[in-house]
């Protein structure tokens, strides 16, 4: 029978069948400071051990400062959490990339960089953006702390199989349109809960043409459509990215690649839902509301609640417009921006910084705007500095920070005040996400940089050569 990529990875990890559920083996477990302390405490309580410390890797990312390497730079509570992670990793023999380590970074940036994520793996982390790693053809999903504890103790998880959704992005992308615009357009089309209960496979010519960094951006936001995971079948782009990385197979490289090449959806494989998008139709996207599905092209006026026939969407629009301080029919290009955030597990990779720098060098940060650039990892930071991107940013008036999750969720001091309006390359525009009463508009790195230098939501297509 023809199988999907998801079927193949799922079936390869079944340890046991328990009724309708499968006990799945977990190949890779990534941990960070926020969602792991209670899991380790639970193990200790019950005198249980970490089964596979060699399959588990930790980093510090959420609760850390982007201005200082001091572990207590963001106060004693954050410091305790970070210290707890360090102690737990040390006591259990888990490799940790702490603040200040050259390879430390946002878990979903540093993991792939190290070659920890490979096609066909099952990957979990106590973080919903674990979907990122599906870009490698892995089955990767976010879990809660009780499940973190379960994986630490057993290296398995009991799971029910999700439905499958194929999203084809056909044709090639117009100039100025990025992976971020593709995924925002997808979420806009299927809705904020449009893929709840599904694992998505992204396919089509436009997806095939993407780099690994871009595929990670797409898969990263699968959760913003409610999906359990997002996947892209591995190909030569994937293998080229992986070759020679620290944790990538070397001795068994050929065997691994031979297996990885079997990981695709067979012709005629059945998907529960199929969605088609034309790349040519995608404009630079900007969210106008308080969930990622409330998104429009930059050249489209802010919608009215009356534009929605569904009563839930209508009511959500009323609330969102009020929170965001927007009027129906308003043009985004007239909207002043007070802050710009470039970074996060969605858009904190080297290609994102290159795209933002390309725009940043065409101007200076507008007088009323505070703009920060936060590399996704130590390796991204170093690479950017070698390429002189940091200089482009600082010359233009952007702040150049240390790697971490930063203003995506503001667990450190990178937070906004009520009424601030931020063009952000992150993944969630929920109420209060970047600070109580603050207004977040999700955009691509290029759009964020353009917002910084114009002080409004400019159409990035006007900045292309």
């Amino acid at each position: 029978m023809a199988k999907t990529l998801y079927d193949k990875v799922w079936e390869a990890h079944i340890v046991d069948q328990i009724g309708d559920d499968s006990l799945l083996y977990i190949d890779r477990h990534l941990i960070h400071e926020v969602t792991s302390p209670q899991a380790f405490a639970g193990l200790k309580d019950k005198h249980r051990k970490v089964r596979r410390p060699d399959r588990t890797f930790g980093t510090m990312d959420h609760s850390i400062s982007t201005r200082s390497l001091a572990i207590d730079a963001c106060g004693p509570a954050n410091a305790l959490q970070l210290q707890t992670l360090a102690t737990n990793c040390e006591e259990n023999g888990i490799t940790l990339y702490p603040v200040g380590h050259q390879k430390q970074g946002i878990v979903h940036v540093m993991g792939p960089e190290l070659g920890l994520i490979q096609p066909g793996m099952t990957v979990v982390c106590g973080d919903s953006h674990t979907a990122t790693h599906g870009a490698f053809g892995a089955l990767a999903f976010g879990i809660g702390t009780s499940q973190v504890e379960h994986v630490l103790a057993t290296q398995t998880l009991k799971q029910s199989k999700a439905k499958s959704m194929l999203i084809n992005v056909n044709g090639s992308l117009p100039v100025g349109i990025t992976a971020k615009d593709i995924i925002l357009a997808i979420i806009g089309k299927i809705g904020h809960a449009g893929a709840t209960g599904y694992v998505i496979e992204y396919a089509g010519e436009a997806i095939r043409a993407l780099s690994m960094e871009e595929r990670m951006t797409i898969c990263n936001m699968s959760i913003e459509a409610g999906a359990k995971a997002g996947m892209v079948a591995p190909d030569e782009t994937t293998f080229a990215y992986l070759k020679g990385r620290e944790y990538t197979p070397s001795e068994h490289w050929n065997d691994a690649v031979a297996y990885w090449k079997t990981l695709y959806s067979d012709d005629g494989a059945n998907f529960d839902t199929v969605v088609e998008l034309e790349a040519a139709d995608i404009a630079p996207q900007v969210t106008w509301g308080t969930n990622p599905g409330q998104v429009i092209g930059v050249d489209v006026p802010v919608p009215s609640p009356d534009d929605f026939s569904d009563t839930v969407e209508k009511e959500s629009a009323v609330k969102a417009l009020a929170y965001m301080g927007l009027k129906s029919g308003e043009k985004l290009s007239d909207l002043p921006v007070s802050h710009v955030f470039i970074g996060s597990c969605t858009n904190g990779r080297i290609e994102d910084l290159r795209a933002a720098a390309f725009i940043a060098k065409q101007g200076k940060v507008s007088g009323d705007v505070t703009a920060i650039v936060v590399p996704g990892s130590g390796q991204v930071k170093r690479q950017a500095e070698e390429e002189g991107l940091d200089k482009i940013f600082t010359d233009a008036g952007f702040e150049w920070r240390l790697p971490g999750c930063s203003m995506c969720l503001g667990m450190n001091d990178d937070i906004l005040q009520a009424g601030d309006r931020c063009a952000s390359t992150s993944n969630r525009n929920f109420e209060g996400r970047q600070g109580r009463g603050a207004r977040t508009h999700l955009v691509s790195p290029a759009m964020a940089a353009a917002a910084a230098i114009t002080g409004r939501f400019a159409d990035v297509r006007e900045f292309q050569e």
Partner: protein
Amino acid sequence: MSQGFTVHTGRACPLDQANVDTDQIIPKQFLTGVTRAGYGKHLFHDWRYLDLHEKEPNPEFVMNKPEHQGASILLSRENFGCGSSREHAPWALADYGFDVVIATSFADIFYGNCINNQLVPVALSSAQMDTLFALVKATPSLDIVVDLPAQTVSAGNEVFHFDILAHHKNNLIKGLDAIGQTLELNQAIEGYESQQPAWL
């Protein structure tokens, strides 16, 4: 987990809103703890308090209304618990005193987190939720009965059936230790590990 869940009777707090995300349930500034306890006082912080120090309750917020004090069942709408995987969300709901959340639909990770914390998630149809909201609006003190073994929600003269996976139901009723159950399958796990390819 120890105490199982069978039948619960309690009053409801009607949070009549779709897409209630985990950033609303428990904002990020309260995620710096290293224990599972004490998140209830911060539940719905931004909506519940007018100030940052949680001294001034917002009288407009439904949870602060006198008629909904002591409620143990939260009612909401579509896509409840969307967003992050933070288990602090069900910890906060349970710590505040909720035993059950009844909504039109749930985000996947949040739903699983509820099961792992003995917080019972019940999904009803949109029309059934309309009825429940109307009943609670008319009579805030109405007792609602959630019978997990029978998979029913009863309120006034209404009885609604709900679906739940057998193993979720079983774990909630018995309050089973999921890790303990899996550790009993150690032989199967070892068998699986022994046949993994060499590069893993």
